[in-house]
């Protein structure tokens, strides 16, 4: 394939006789030898699989070459070797879902209704083999041709009962060699069960069989609780031994032991194996070629203090290859790796990049509107309900519409290219797209307008998916009518669209980092290395924060040594000014132009800066239960760390030590999991056992959440004889101080009877609580969640920044996290801030902002008082002194001032009164 010629039309696939398994759909269906991975693929270029192409294997066929209108097919292409010169390498090869075929107990390879979670993911997807319909026998072709398959397909039904089996290919050294926890399966199983219920209706019975429920991420515990309480998903703590099949119906029978020790038989229509994440042999070999060290589990070996740096200089790693992780963590890794790779090359920054060529804007002012309308099918997402062809035809009849077209995926590269062509060819000067949500896709289409020389505000998007095909699924006719109404409204507004101007923002390239803990220091160091003057603000008298209290990381590294090294580096960096004993008094201004007053005991001073990083951290809860404070032998995890650090002689006298987990976490008043405490206790238990092998150590827990390779510590602790006893939130352990004895009483879940432990030391694994600094949050207009953690811009794609431009977040103020993750996020925040600082001459305001008709302004001040962003103010000079004016940078275009202006002096560009009315009138025609 010549990718430069391929236009992505798909004509080549129509008659291609070669077939092979469609990996994108987890091999649940077949694809042609010439293929595109998926409809929204980037780049949207077809590829040929040389192993199944008849032309390449047998020199027959050649149909694709005949039908390709772009003459892009080239069978003579050979492997090419290209040499690239680069300063750094980022290696992020990802993972493969574990293949359970070799497990004979679950019979995945033989039973048609045992599927993997990846297969189930595709079954749930609207673009998947069953178009989102959950059905049994999903591995059979939709319209089977073989006789045997046809017979099976007749038995196809909508499942009534589905079970998920957790830890398939994870936490298992019996049937495979993956001792680690894959970190993501508990959450995705809950998600799949929820979505399956959504697709199949509320009566679907979903059960998740698990060992420990591991939901230690931000908002995860609530998701788990909701799944139980709101969605009625059953959680069964049991490892199912094996599965048998009813040979007639192919229903699946399982036998398991429940928590009370009873043997239970049950039957399911489908079983989903929650397969773990695995590093492929190919990746391991490639890592060896690169000369980087791996852990015994096959992941990249990195230190907690340089968590994205491989053992080889200049090679950085991110994503699942750098330990099993979910999407937000992979996103943080990505930015952190970019920061680490960039830091090493900062002297060569901007030497090889070129500025993007600007396409001159066509002046359309005064021209009659010529509207182009594009209707998106979104695969079956919209077209499955709405008659998109009918809507397209209808659009052509509307006033000022010059052209209308339907696209399978309007967001795909080829549809975008076509749009540019149509704009040029038909001189379109306004564009309407009826598709999904502008929240995610408006910027993409606006960029397309820019590429075609149109001002990006000559665009209107209407949502015929979320607001229509999704909510009116059962009423296709009405949905089609509504789509027409929505398009008519959008066209009416688009006809009135005007080109808008974006104002340039000057960027002060000084940085302020608030919080001198590990995360804040890491951010400051990276930004300083990139050449930016950085001010590090710390409330206390020294840098280092909570990390001063830690003994070792989960990988056994000494925290104090590394912490002190980092503090020294910070203090000796000429670009960093450290302000200890300093608090922030106020924040004025906006992205690129912040101004604050900072106060110490003796003075106060002003600081001007362009971006801010909030790294205020969290602190350990002071417990109010388990007799804490009433006896010296009852301490917190950090107290125990202190004893280790000081090599306290008392440690050698202990004969029995008890840990209680979830002290203050995972309970109604603090519903989140504090993420770090399980590993911390397990680690400290090992340390106690190492110091004195004869000691009895008990960990009383609810779920052990040693995610990722931390699981190996859990395994080691069990091997060393640490005893784990589970308790329920409803039946917490009881601590009794009796005649000088420290007793811990609880019900043992294995023996199902009360036990009493006499302890010499009781360590409470306390929750990490956020500082809940509402003052700081208000200063920067950034949100806090119910628990007091900062709310990031996007749970998955913006985990190190706020929705407020120019403000970034890292460390435990975002969510509790261990050393390596705090440092990763510190680096990630620096990387995100750097992308903004690098735009110094290229940062613009939005065009859709309020503006004042000064002649009409009555100076009442309502707009000044009501704006949550402090954008309107009274002009102090000039002809209109005393009248309201809008600060274009602060204005978010919310329209609050416009709605409250009693003089009609305020207008929102792009959403002006006559534009809104035009939509309402256009809707009126339908009534």
């Amino acid at each position, binding site marked *: 394939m010549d990718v430069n010629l391929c236009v992505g039309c798909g004509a080549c696939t129509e008659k291609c006789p070669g077939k092979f398994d469609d990996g*994108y759909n987890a091999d649940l269906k077949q694809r042609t030898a010439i293929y*595109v*991975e*998926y409809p*929204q*693929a*980037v780049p*949207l270029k*077809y*590829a040929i699989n040389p192993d199944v192409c008849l032309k390449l294997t047998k020199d027959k066929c050649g149909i694709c070459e005949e039908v390709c209108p772009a003459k892009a097919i080239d069978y003579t292409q050979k492997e090419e070797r290209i040499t*690239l*010169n*680069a*300063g*750094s*390498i*980022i290696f*992020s*090869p*990802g*993972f493969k879902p574990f293949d359970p075929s070799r497990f004979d107990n679950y019979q995945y390879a033989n039973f048609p209704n045992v599927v993997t979670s990846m297969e189930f*993911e595709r079954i*749930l*997807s*609207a673009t998947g083999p069953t178009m989102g319909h959950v059905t049994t026998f999903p591995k059979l072709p939709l319209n089977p041709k073989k006789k045997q398959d046809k017979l099976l397909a007749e038995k196809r039904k909508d499942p009534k009962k589905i079970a998920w089996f957790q830890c398939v290919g994870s936490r298992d050294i019996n049937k495979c060699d993956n001792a680690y926890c894959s970190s993501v399966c508990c959450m995705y199983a809950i*998600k799949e069960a*929820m*979505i399956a219920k959504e697709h199949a209706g509320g009566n679907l019975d979903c059960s998740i069989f698990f060992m420990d429920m591991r939901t230690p*991420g*931000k*908002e*995860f515990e609530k*998701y788990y609780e909701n799944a139980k309480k709101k969605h009625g998903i059953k959680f069964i703590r049991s490892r199912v031994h094996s599965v048998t099949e009813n040979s007639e119906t192919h229903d699946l029978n399982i036998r398991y032991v429940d928590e009370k020790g009873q043997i239970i038989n049950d039957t399911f229509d489908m079983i989903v194996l929650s397969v773990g994440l695995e590093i492929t042999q190919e990746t391991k070999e490639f890592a060896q070629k690169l000369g980087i060290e791996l852990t015994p589990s096959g992941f990249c070996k990195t230190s907690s203090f340089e968590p994205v740096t491989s053992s080889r200089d200049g090679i950085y790693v*991110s*994503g699942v290859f750098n330990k099993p992780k*979910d*999407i937000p963590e*992979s*996103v943080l890794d*990505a*930015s952190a790796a*970019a*920061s680490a*790779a*960039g830091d090493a*090359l900062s*002297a*060569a*920054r901007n*030497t*090889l*990049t070129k500025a993007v060529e600007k396409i001159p804007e066509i002046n359309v002012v005064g021209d009659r509107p010529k509207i182009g309308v594009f209707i998106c099918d979104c695969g079956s997402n919209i077209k499955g309900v709405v008659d998109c062809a009918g809507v397209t035809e209808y659009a052509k009849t509307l006033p000022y519409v010059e052209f209308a077209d339907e696209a399978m995926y309007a967001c795909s590269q080829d549809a975008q290219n076509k749009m540019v062509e149509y704009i040029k060819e038909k001189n379109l000067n306004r564009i309407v797209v009826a598709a999904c949500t502008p929240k995610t896709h408006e910027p993409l289409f606006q960029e397309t307008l820019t590429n075609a020389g149109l001002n990006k505000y000559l665009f209107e998007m209407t949502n015929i998916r979320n607001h229509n095909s999704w909510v009116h699924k059962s009423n296709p006719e009405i949905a089609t009518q509504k789509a027409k109404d929505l398009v008519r409204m959008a066209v009416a507004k688009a006809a009135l669209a005007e080109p808008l101007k974006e104002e340039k923002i000057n960027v002060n390239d000084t940085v302020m980092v608030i919080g001198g803990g590990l995360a804040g220091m890491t951010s400051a160091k990276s930004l300083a290395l*990139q050449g930016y003057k950085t001010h590090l603000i710390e409330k206390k008298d020294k840098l280092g924060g909570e990390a001063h209290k830690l003994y070792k990381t989960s990988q056994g590294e000494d925290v104090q040594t590394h912490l002190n090294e980092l503090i020294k580096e910070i203090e000796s960096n000429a670009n960093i000014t450290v302000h200890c004993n300093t608090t922030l008094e106020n924040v004025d201004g906006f992205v690129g132009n912040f101004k604050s007053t900072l106060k110490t005991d003796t003075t106060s001073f002003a600081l001007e800066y362009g971006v801010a990083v909030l790294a205020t951290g969290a602190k350990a809860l002071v417990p109010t239960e388990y007799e804490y404070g009433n006896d010296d032998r009852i301490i917190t995890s950090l107290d125990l760390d202190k004893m280790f650090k000081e090599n306290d002689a008392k440690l050698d006298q202990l004969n029995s030590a008890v840990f209680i987990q979830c002290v203050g976490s995972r309970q109604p008043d603090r519903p989140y999991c504090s993420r770090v405490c399980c590993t911390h206790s397990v680690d400290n238990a090992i340390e106690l056992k190492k110091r004195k092998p004869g000691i009895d150590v008990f960990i009383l827990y609810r779920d052990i959440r040693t995610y990722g390779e931390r699981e190996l510590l859990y395994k080691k602790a069990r091997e060393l004889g640490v005893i784990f006893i589970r308790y329920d939130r409803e039946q917490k352990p009881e601590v009794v101080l009796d005649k000088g004895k420290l007793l811990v009483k609880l019900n043992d879940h294995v023996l199902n009877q009360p036990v009493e432990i006499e302890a010499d030391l009781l360590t409470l694994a306390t929750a990490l609580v956020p500082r809940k600094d509402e003052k700081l949050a208000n200063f920067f207009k950034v949100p806090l969640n119910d628990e007091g953690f900062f709310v990031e811009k996007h*749970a998955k794609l913006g985990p190190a920044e706020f929705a407020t431009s120019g403000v970034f977040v890292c460390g435990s103020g975002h969510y509790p996290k261990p050393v390596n993750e705090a440092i990763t996020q510190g680096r990630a925040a620096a*990387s*995100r801030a*750097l*992308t903004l600082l*690098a*735009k110094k001459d290229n940062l613009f305001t939005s065009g859709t902002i309020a503006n004042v008709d000064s002649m009409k302004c009555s100076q009442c001040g309502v707009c000044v008082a009501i704006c949550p962003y402090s954008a309107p103010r009274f002009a102090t000079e000039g002809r209109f002194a005393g009248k309201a004016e809008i600060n274009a940078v602060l204005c978010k275009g919310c329209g609050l001032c416009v709605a409250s202006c009693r003089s009609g002096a305020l207008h929102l560009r792009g959403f002006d009164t006559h534009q809104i009315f035009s939509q309402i009138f256009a809707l009126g025609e339908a009534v």
Partner: protein
Amino acid sequence: MNNKLTGSVVVIGGGISGMLSALDLANSGYYVYLVEKGPSIGGVMAQLDKTFPTNDCAM
């Protein structure tokens, strides 16, 4: 030793992590080569239906 630094980075792997590394670096002033074995970028995330804990569309 640093007088011959090259201001470019090779990112191997076009999944969510590789793509975002590439974007951050390109937007910070480094030239990026994004290398992907398959015919398109996107990785495993493109195969997912929804994502936890917000149940957003993964695509």
